[in-house]
């Protein structure tokens, strides 16, 4: 037996993002629920979010974002030999999303699996993709975070419906001579599993807001710092900090404690809501589109959510 021949390193070739067309503003929600724009903006920082209709599934969202990332990468569907879809909101678990997404994008016979690390899913999948390229298990990997949270949220529950939304983001990962994806710092806190949960198949998403807020604002900046340390990057040298878009106050609290003084901090939640595994690649793809970050700059990603799970790594912006 012998080992596969991997690449010296992996990098991200391109990002892609997609949001469904239907915009839901805070005023739309206030018209039917006991809430208001001022309350929502002050508590979670969201102005509007997007929701997919009954005709658009999490697979459709993933295909849109994956197709954009693939096109921007300059590769063709034939070049991809592994597809990982990070999602925790798939309508039914069989068959998986990855095989269907690959087929729709014309990617023939790739390794294809779904990965559930909830809102940390994209960072987990990115680490898995990087490792696959370096070990030789894959040459080029399509990584997608896609979520249709609207189908798991009670539309009458003002504590969750204002926060969670639908969307997808994707990245193409390929071989490189120098590191473009840093070592992952990851972990989990299963003792707090009940803080964010869907109790059974007939239930909706529930979260203990204060517990999650306390955990996120105290336990995660050390993880982000560890990811920088493992990559040998000073937080002051980061061009961008792209944490999971859970809540603007969590984003700002972590950014404050991280000390990434020169980094643009992603605030995509304002117009996208919390899209779980999709939020990081969606935010970063839009920052690249708007020209807020430059190719070659370093970005720190930090995913965290149900599980509780968390993962962070430094990447070079494509």
């Amino acid at each position, binding site marked *: 037996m012998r080992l596969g021949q991997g690449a010296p390193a992996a990098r991200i070739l391109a990002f892609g993002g997609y949001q469904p067309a239907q915009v839901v503003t805070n005023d739309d929600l206030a018209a039917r629920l006991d809430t208001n724009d001022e309350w929502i903006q002050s*508590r979670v920082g969201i102005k509007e979010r997007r929701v997919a209709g009954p005709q658009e599934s999490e697979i459709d969202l993933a295909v849109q974002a994956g197709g954009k990332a693939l096109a921007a990468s300059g590769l063709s569907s034939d070049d991809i030999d592994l597809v990982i879809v990070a999602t925790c909101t798939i309508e039914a678990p069989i068959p998986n999303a990855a095989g269907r997404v690959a087929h729709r994008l014309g990617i023939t016979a790739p390794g294809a699996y779904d990965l559930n690390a909830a809102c940390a899913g994209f960072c987990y999948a990115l680490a898995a993709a990087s490792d696959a390229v370096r070990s030789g298990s894959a040459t080029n990997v399509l990584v997608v975070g896609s979520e249709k949270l609207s189908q798991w949220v009670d539309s009458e529950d003002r504590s969750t419906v204002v926060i969670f939304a639908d969307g997808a983001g994707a990245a193409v990962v390929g071989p490189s001579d120098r590191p473009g994806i840093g070592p992952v710092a990851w972990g989990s806190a299963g003792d707090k599993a009940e803080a964010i949960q869907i109790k059974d198949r007939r239930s909706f998403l529930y979260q*203990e*807001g*204060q*517990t999650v*807020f*306390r955990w996120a*604002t105290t336990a995660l900046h050390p993880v982000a710092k560890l990811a920088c340390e493992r990559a040998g990057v000073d937080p002051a040298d980061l061009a961008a900090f792209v944490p999971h878009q859970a809540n603007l106050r969590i984003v700002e609290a972590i950014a404050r404690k991280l000390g990434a003084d020169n980094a643009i901090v992603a605030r995509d939640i304002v117009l996208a809501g919390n899209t779980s595994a999709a939020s990081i690649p969606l935010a970063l793809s839009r920052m690249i589109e708007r020209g807020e970050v430059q190719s070659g700059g370093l970005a720190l990603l930090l995913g965290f959510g149900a599980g509780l799970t968390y993962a962070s790594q430094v990447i070079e912006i494509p």
Partner: protein
Amino acid sequence: MALTEQEILAGLGKIINEITGIPADEVTAEKSFVDDLDIDSLSMVEIAVAAQDEFGVEIPDDQLKHLKTVKDVINFIQA
């Protein structure tokens, strides 16, 4: 050595000012966080975490919801 009420109040005033921008001298013992200071539940969590760092006393979420006034927090820290 246990801190006095005045010392804890001064520390809380500073913490609340840093987190919410409310002037520290407006933070007095009889004030209600919600009704008088307009502090929401998430800011209360941030205040509890900062108070833990400052005074070494953990205020869990299930206790935090019972602490309505500044004096309640002072008593909790002193207890």
